[in-house]
């Protein structure tokens, strides 16, 4: 027994080293479960504070650029207002429906919330974006994020009370359902971690007529993203003779280097859709419960 204690005392530094090393690796490999723990949320709050202060300074240098972009977006929205249209038909009387317009609101599908980006990276293979809105402002996981032009940026993966963490499109685990604007055929947008300027679009059949420069928009099959918002443009067509599918390189519509203000979009029917999807899978794919 005494020898054991002596042995441990002698190699105490080595054991400390082993312990810390194993602890680090445990953190690293249990990240998916671990990131929901309170521990990291607290850390998220702390780094969020520092990031927020830094961003305050940085914002000054890009105000002009951002202003111009917000202005163009406002411009396009103003053009959609009904008061911009004149009714030319004066022979018919306009009859207003007696149902108040508020009752239609329960059919609202997407709700937009503005947020500011306080941390952003593009250099890693797994890039995350931090926003200054969190659970206290109604942000939850699986909401999609669009930039101020309306271009797809990423999906919220984790929230703390006042900050939210977004998995950017520039993340090797990210998969977004997108469609070709011209024909509506859909595929999956991914990233291989190589070039932040190019995403990969997989799963488009070769029968689709396609040109370099075609627009890729978010698909109406996506649970997170509202349909029809730009995701990118086709930059290069790689035709692999081995498969029936195109492999496309897509230039992202959002500029990830200078993100400042974004919209967090909530799909109000997300939980219902996800639940239905899961139930269907369970019912069809479990042979015991439902023998055929």
């Amino acid at each position, binding site marked *: 027994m005494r020898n054991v204690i002596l042995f441990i005392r002698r190699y105490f530094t080595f054991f400390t080293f082993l312990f810390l090393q194993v602890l680090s690796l445990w953190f690293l490999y249990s990240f998916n479960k671990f990131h929901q723990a309170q521990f990291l949320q607290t850390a998220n709050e702390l780094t969020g504070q520092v990031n927020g202060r830094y961003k305050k300074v940085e914002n000054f240098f890009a105000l002009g650029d951002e202003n111009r972009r917000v202005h163009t977006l406002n411009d396009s929205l103003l053009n959609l207002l009904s008061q911009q249209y004149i009714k030319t038909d004066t022979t018919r009387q306009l009859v207003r429906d007696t149902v108040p317009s508020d009752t239609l609101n329960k059919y609202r599908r997407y709700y937009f919330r503005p947020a500011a980006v306080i941390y952003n990276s593009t*250099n890693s293979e*797994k890039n995350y974006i931090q926003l200054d809105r969190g659970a206290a402002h109604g942000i939850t996981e699986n909401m999609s994020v669009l930039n101020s032009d309306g271009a797809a940026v990423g999906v919220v993966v984790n929230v703390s009370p006042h900050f939210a963490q977004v998995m950017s499109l520039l993340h090797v685990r990210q998969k977004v359902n997108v469609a070709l604007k011209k024909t509506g055929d859909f595929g999956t947008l991914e990233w291989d971690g190589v070039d932040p300027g190019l995403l990969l679009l997989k799963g488009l059949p070769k029968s689709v007529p396609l040109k370099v420069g075609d627009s890729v928009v978010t698909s109406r099959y996506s649970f997170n993203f509202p349909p029809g918002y730009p995701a990118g443009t086709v930059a290069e067509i790689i035709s692999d003779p081995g498969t029936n599918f195109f492999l496309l390189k897509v230039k992202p519509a959002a500029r990830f280097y200078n993100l400042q203000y974004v919209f967090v979009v909530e799909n109000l029917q997300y939980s219902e859709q996800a639940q239905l999807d899961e139930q269907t899978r369970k019912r069809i794919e479990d042979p015991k419960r439902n023998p055929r």
Partner: protein
Amino acid sequence: MSELIRNSIRFILFLLFEVYVLHRVPHLHRFISPSLYFLFILWLPFVVSPRWLLLIAFVTGLTLDYFTQSPGLHAAACVLIAYVRPFLITVLMPRDNSDFNYREPSPQSLLWAPYFIYVLILTLLHHGWLVLLEWMSFGSFGDFLIKLIASTAISLLLIITVELLFPRNMRYRTNVGG
């Protein structure tokens, strides 16, 4: 200035520089990712015991990890170099001034050539462990070998630049006089 305050300020400066400058600047190439924060561990005083060295390194790595959202990645690499550091210093310390006359490792205390070897080995170990852990989660081995060499080279360049720009004013401690 006391050792504690000096090193605390260094800790903050190195981490802020790493997070807000080196991780912000668009990289020259995807294989070249410079990093400098671990110089903090290389510069810790000689008097810090190996156990404290390990703990400080762990905290340093973990703090950076919280900024980069990869808990454990940098901490593992930092703990590794903190473990190897005392052995390297014993090997590389000049024989003639065996009792430590200097406060911390520097080109003056170890002399330029051994100091360069010290930095080279620890940088290589740090990046090697980091790149290995990244490679195990995804990617091809050839890519990461190139990444290791390129990142080590750019980091060494940065470290040498820092050493030349900020020569640390080392007090020569003797028993004679002040």
